């Protein structure tokens, strides 16, 4: 399957990607091609290897075999400089590890702006914080935020910085119904201009996706989407 209805810009291309862990095969001949912006949901059972796959796309883990192309550039997993440069273009939203707990939300965003070398104005920060109902929490230390507030604070970074690919691992965990709706609203807005790949169990998220990918299907046979 080739989803080229979102434009002709290749964001991610994976060819015959496999990962062997000792004697266990985690990923086998996995292929995927994502072009243009949109919300892609990666749906699958627990322990099927979804997070491992997303770790590889986030350039955190190396595959055993296979090829990967990001933003039309082949990735050389042995080239650490290339990996370090590309990791800055990818937002990886991973459970509760997105922010430094001892810092406030504002300080965290400042640190991320230093890492990505992207400046953010106070006006834009206030505007996006208001959308996520985080205006009053912006100067609160992350460790003092509730689970839902932390998720929203982490989501704030995705809204503020210009990432070429956004990877979300179970983003609706710890969120109540209202917050889920708010987040889905933000994702619907974001997907118009960004490419978002989300690993999720949530049917609500799946319903909002432009494309739903069954991980078991990807991992069993060669497939081009």
């Amino acid at each position, binding site marked *: 399957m080739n989803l080229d209805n979102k434009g002709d810009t290749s964001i991610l291309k994976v060819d015959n990607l496999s990962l062997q862990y000792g004697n266990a095969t985690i990923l086998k001949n996995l292929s995927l091609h994502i072009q243009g912006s949109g919300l892609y949901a990666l749906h699958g059972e627990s322990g099927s290897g979804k997070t491992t796959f997303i*770790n590889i796309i986030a350039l955190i883990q190396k595959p055993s075999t296979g090829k990967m192309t990001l933003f039309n550039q082949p990735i050389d997993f042995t080239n650490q400089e290339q990996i370090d440069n590309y990791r800055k273009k990818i937002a990886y939203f991973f459970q509760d*590890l997105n922010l430094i707990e001892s810092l406030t939300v504002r300080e965290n965003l400042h640190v991320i702006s230093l890492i990505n070398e992207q400046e953010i104005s106070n006006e834009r920060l206030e505007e996006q914080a208001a959308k996520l109902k985080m205006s009053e929490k912006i100067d609160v230390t992350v460790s003092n935020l509730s689970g839902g507030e932390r998720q929203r604070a982490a989501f704030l970074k995705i809204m503020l910085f210009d990432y070429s690919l956004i990877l979300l691992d179970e983003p609706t965990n710890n969120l109540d119904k209202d917050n889920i709706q708010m987040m889905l609203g933000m994702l619907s807005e974001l997907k118009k201009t960004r490419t978002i790949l989300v690993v999720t169990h949530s049917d609500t998220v799946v319903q909002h996706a432009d494309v739903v990918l069954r991980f078991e299907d990807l991992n069993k046979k060669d497939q081009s989407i």
Partner: protein
Amino acid sequence: MKTTFVFEYLKKKHRPTLRKLAVLNFVLLMLIFFSIFTILISADNIYKNVLTNDRLSMVLINGYSKTGEYQYDTDKIKRMPNVKDIVYEYDVSLSIEANGETDILSALSFNPTTKEAVSYEGDLKENTILLPERFKGKKIKVFDGEVEPLKANIDYYKGEGNYFLKDYSYLSPDLYKKLSNQIKIGENYDGVRTLIVNLNKTEDIYEFVNQFDRMFDEEDVFVYYQAQGLEKLVANSKLSFLLLVVFQIILFVVITFIYRGQMHTLISILNRDLLSLYLNGMSSKDMIKQFYRSIDKMNLKVYIVALLFIAVLGAFLLGQLPGEIILWIGGTAVGLLLVLVLLNKWFVRYIITKRMKKELSQENIVSRLRN
């Protein structure tokens, strides 16, 4: 580079831990500094005053058997390791009257060994008595063993040589031969030859004395050393120096481990933060570089305080010690501190790099994300 300041935030949030680390580094730096300084001073002291002190390199030995004099096998002694030369001869007794006061001195022949023992320069003329310098300027009358006046030339030595031979007098070979014929051998213990053993190096004295002792049976022969105790002083000096070095090495290792442990604790505290920074796109290389820079910046204050501390100590000592010594000590202290600072910087960078590389390895990150 903008990202240089990422860890400024962490410094603000973990100030107590960082301050503890800085204080510890200062204490450790000072401990190592003063330990090494103690070693240098002790080594200099032991080396100059004991181990290479020529004035301690001769051993005077007398030996008695149950029947009187014990005859040493001089050929065997000459062949012993570390022996440079020996003198084996009878003491000649001289009465010296100086300004009316009589003193009894033992006399030995003037030869290369005894010449070295009193650091005398040049040779003695015939029929000459060499007296300690304390007799110089006094009206001297010399009497032989028969208390008969002795007509001979008199010269003096300063006595900067061997400690145990500096109150002896020395006779030119012809005079010694003449006077030694008067000695009544075997009548009592007075007629016992003195054995002087000149060693190659002072530090060999303990080995020599031990080996020498083993040559005799205590029940048959009583060996008496004029330098008794000296061999223990030398041996103890060597041992104490070795122990000092061992102690410093142990201290250095302990200090290294304490600091390393404290740094690991700090990195463990920051572990979750490091993972967050990594997931937010910061490279391991940048994290290691910036974290080291933050710690190094903090350590700069430690180095300055250490230098000031030593400067204050130097100023205090200025009033207590001569200027020349203070200059020498000051120069050594600053040089040593600079070397220690460079070593400290290298060490801090090494432990940070090693630990953070491990923490930020792909295996570790993946394993933590999986858990």
